[in-house]
């Protein structure tokens, strides 16, 4: 088992594979045990019974290299261990070892310290790095801000420049604006430009008021127009009715036409703004229209009869045109009727009063009743008057006949008297007869005139103080005048 050790190398050598490497970081105590272990292991294998001399020689060399006194005495081969020297050597060695250990400890402590300081430094360095990062970022941020502010400053400067320019212009503008405003106030005082009015309740109320005024004006205008339109349409209807009546009048007898005339006369006085009157009007128109229609149909039949008898081209054509015209007239009348109905509906809607239907119908009935009774009374009086008139007429005719008789007699007497006169006319005046006859004639004439006068007075008395209406009076006067004209005295 030989192993070579160079004297310069420090004694850190590991021999066996099973010996563990020495950890110099371990604690001194551990180190000691390890070193003892180490020592034991080395000692156990280093020196044996055989190689004592060599070991001794080797140890002496080692000690020499370490600077210690040799331990063995004697020569090279047969050297013997000096116990004292060996002990001293051992003690020196131990001291050395201890010293080494202590330095090792110190070194380890130093190393720990340095390690911890390194750690500390590392931590601080990372912190500082972070701080540095932060501050760098802040710096860039500040730089950026500075740049923006500079830009802003530039733009504000520009703005200021512009404002300065504008203000120069505005001086002119405000001046011209003043003129402008003066223009406004003087020329356009009517266009309501009052910008400095606060929005108070007053202005709001004013606006509301104006708005409602406009609406009301509009409604008033509309209502006025509608009323005018209605009045016009009613007039048109009235005229239409009159026209129809007049058309039919010429074909009917006097009696019927008289009745209708009287009816119309009374109606013209009636107010045409009540439902009653409107209904009367429309009913009247319907009645007239029906009469007209029947009349036209009669004419048609007559015309067709005439056609059948005539049978010429011209007639047929004229008949066609006549029919066309009739058709057109019918259409127009139908349209008028529809229009009237529509107007009536509108009017009813407009003027409908909020009273009960029952009440109105009742009222209508009452009015109807009253009207009926009045009508009856009127009819009675009319009948009476008619009778009186008939009687009077009879009297008049009798009187007329009597008068005519008397006239005839008078004429005959006169003729006789004339004849007598003529025959008895002589150059000798001695007649009493003619006197008598003259007197007779005078008496008869006077009698007639007296008769006529008394008759007249009688008539006047009768007519004046009787209850005969004016129309009858007029008619009777006419008749009497006619009668009187016959009795010329």
């Amino acid at each position: 088992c030989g192993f070579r050790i160079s004297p310069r190398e420090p004694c850190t050598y590991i021999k066996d594979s099973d010996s563990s490497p020495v950890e110099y970081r371990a604690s001194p105590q551990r180190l000691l045990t390890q070193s003892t272990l180490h020592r034991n292991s080395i000692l156990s294998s280093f020196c044996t019974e055989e190689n004592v001399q060599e070991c001794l020689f080797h140890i002496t060399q080692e000690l020499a290299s370490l600077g210690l006194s040799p331990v063995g005495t004697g020569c090279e081969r047969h050297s013997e261990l000096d116990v004292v020297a060996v002990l001293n050597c051992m003690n020196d060695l131990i001291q050395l070892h201890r010293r080494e250990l202590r330095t090792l400890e110190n070194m380890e402590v130093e190393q720990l310290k340095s390690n911890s300081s390194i750690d500390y430094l590392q931590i601080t360095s990372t912190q500082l790095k972070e701080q540095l990062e932060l501050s760098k970022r802040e710096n860039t941020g500040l730089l950026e801000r500075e740049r923006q502010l500079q830009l802003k400053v530039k733009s504000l400067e520009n703005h200021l420049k512009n404002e300065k320019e504008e203000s120069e212009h505005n001086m002119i503008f405000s001046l011209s604006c003043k003129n402008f405003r003066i223009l406004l106030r003087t020329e356009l005082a009517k266009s309501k430009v009052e910008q400095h009015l606060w929005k108070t309740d007053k202005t709001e109320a004013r606006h509301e008021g104006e708005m409602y005024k406009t609406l009301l004006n509009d409604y008033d205008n509309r209502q006025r127009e509608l009323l005018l339109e209605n009045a016009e349409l009613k007039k048109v209807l009235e005229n239409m009715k009159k026209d129809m009546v007049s058309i039919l009048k010429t074909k009917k007898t006097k009696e019927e036409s008289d009745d209708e005339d009287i009816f119309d006369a009374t109606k013209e006085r009636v107010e045409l703004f009540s439902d009653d009157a409107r209904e009367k009007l429309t009913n009247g128109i319907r009645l007239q229209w029906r009469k007209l229609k029947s009349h036209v149909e009669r004419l048609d039949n007559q015309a067709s009869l005439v056609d059948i008898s005539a049978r010429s081209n011209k007639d047929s054509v004229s008949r066609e045109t006549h029919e066309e015209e009739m058709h057109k007239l019918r259409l127009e009348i139908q349209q008028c009727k529809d229009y009237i109905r529509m107007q009536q509906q509108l009017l009813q809607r407009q003027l409908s009063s909020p009273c009960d239907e029952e009440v109105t119908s009742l009222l209508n009935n009452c009015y109807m009743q009253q009207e009926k009774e009045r009508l009856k009374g009127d009819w009675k009086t009319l009948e009476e008057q008619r009778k009186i008139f008939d009687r009077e007429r009879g009297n008049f005719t009798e009187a007329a006949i009597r008068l005519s008789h008397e006239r005839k007699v008078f004429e005959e007497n006169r003729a006789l008297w004339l004849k007598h006169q003529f025959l008895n006319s002589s150059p000798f005046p001695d007649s009493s007869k003619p006197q008598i006859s003259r007197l007779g004639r005078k008496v008869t004439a006077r009698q007639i005139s007296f008769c006529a006068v008394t008759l007249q007075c009688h008539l006047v008395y009768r007519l004046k103080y009787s209850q005969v209406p004016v129309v009858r009076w007029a008619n009777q006067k006419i008749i009497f005048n006619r009668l009187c004209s016959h009795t010329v005295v």
Partner: protein
Amino acid sequence: MNFSEVFKQSNQLCKVSPDGKYLATCVQYRLVVRDVATLQILQLYTCLDQVSHMEWSSDSQFILCAMYKRGLVQVWSLEQPDWHCKIDEGSIGLVASRWSPDGRHVLNTTEFSLRITVWSLCTKAVSYIKYPKACQKGLDFSRDGCYMALAERRDCKDYVSIFVCDDWHLLRHFETETQDLAGVEWSPNGCVLAVWESCLEYKVLLYSLDGRLLSTYSAYEWSLGIKSVSWSPSSQFLAIGSYDEMVRILNHITWKTVAQFQHPSSINNTKAVVYKEVEKRPAVSEDLSIHNISMGSTLFSTQSKYEIFLPPVHLPVVKPDPERANPKIGISSLAFSSDSRYLATKNDSMASVVWVWDMQKMSLAAVLEQTAPVRCFQWDPRQARLAMCTGNNKLYLWSPAGCVAVQVPAEGGFQVQSLSWHSSGDSLILLGKDHLCLCYMETEQEDKVL
């Protein structure tokens, strides 16, 4: 009939002042103001960009020029040409600009109809109106200039706000019973507001000035509805043109129909007069004498005159494409004459035919068939006379007495794209693509061709 010389204009911007004295035209970025009688240039203004919209103020003192791309509005004064006014909407953009009735406020509608800015020219104050609705006709001023009706849309609901134009005070604000309000229009007497739905539903609502719902009218369901609406000048009638090719007339008392006018493709029994424009090209082969050739433009232009046709008459119909949006069918144009006696209508499926209805008899009075689709028609503001143009070089006039076709004598051909009457009824302004021309009517009776 005299024609003036031809002047340049751009963008069809040519308007006569309300007082009838001046004519303003835009040529690119310039605004030219002329005297109407002499056509002398009185003022010349330069705007910052090409003008998109130009409008006179109601008192004829100021002109508004709007440049939508730049978001700018410039106002010029006629009396003081040195006076400048520039309204800049900035980044919010500008899609519409108009005067208020008093002529001292400008209403700008910003992009996407986000708001309406009211600029006061007197106090330089600004007011904002929020949530205006972007629709066919979302804003209308009453004729007396007192009230403004504005359609608004908030939270998916339609509202109408009525403002007093004095101080822009909100008078009434009410919700309308519509799904998608398409337009508002005041009656000429200012007491009734007509509100109509979009074409997906036929519905017209009539509101009183104080916000009460007077009546609702719906002619039919489940089909395309209202296309155009027009009030008669007397406020008696409201004419509604719809996609079913019919016009319904509502009366102002009951708000129910008094008449329904149909536009059939074949006219049979009618008392109306049917005029048809007949073109007669001059026969070139016949006489090629120097005299004829030297006539110049008249040789190669077509003369046309009207002929009366007796019913039955068949009108040319163009069937609309059902696949495309905005089908060309239905009554798109309605116009009442100034005395409310006549109503002129145009059915898009028979675009070359104009129908004139007599409002007293409620029946068809005349049918005018042209050779090309009618582009524009307008009634004379003083009498019952209708002027039309079809995009060719002729001007057509109809009156109850008869019908006449007049060629516009301009070198190089003048295609009349639109026209407008002067307020006095004495002259017409004819606008071509890039030019304009004035036509002076004769004061005595015109000769009628038929």
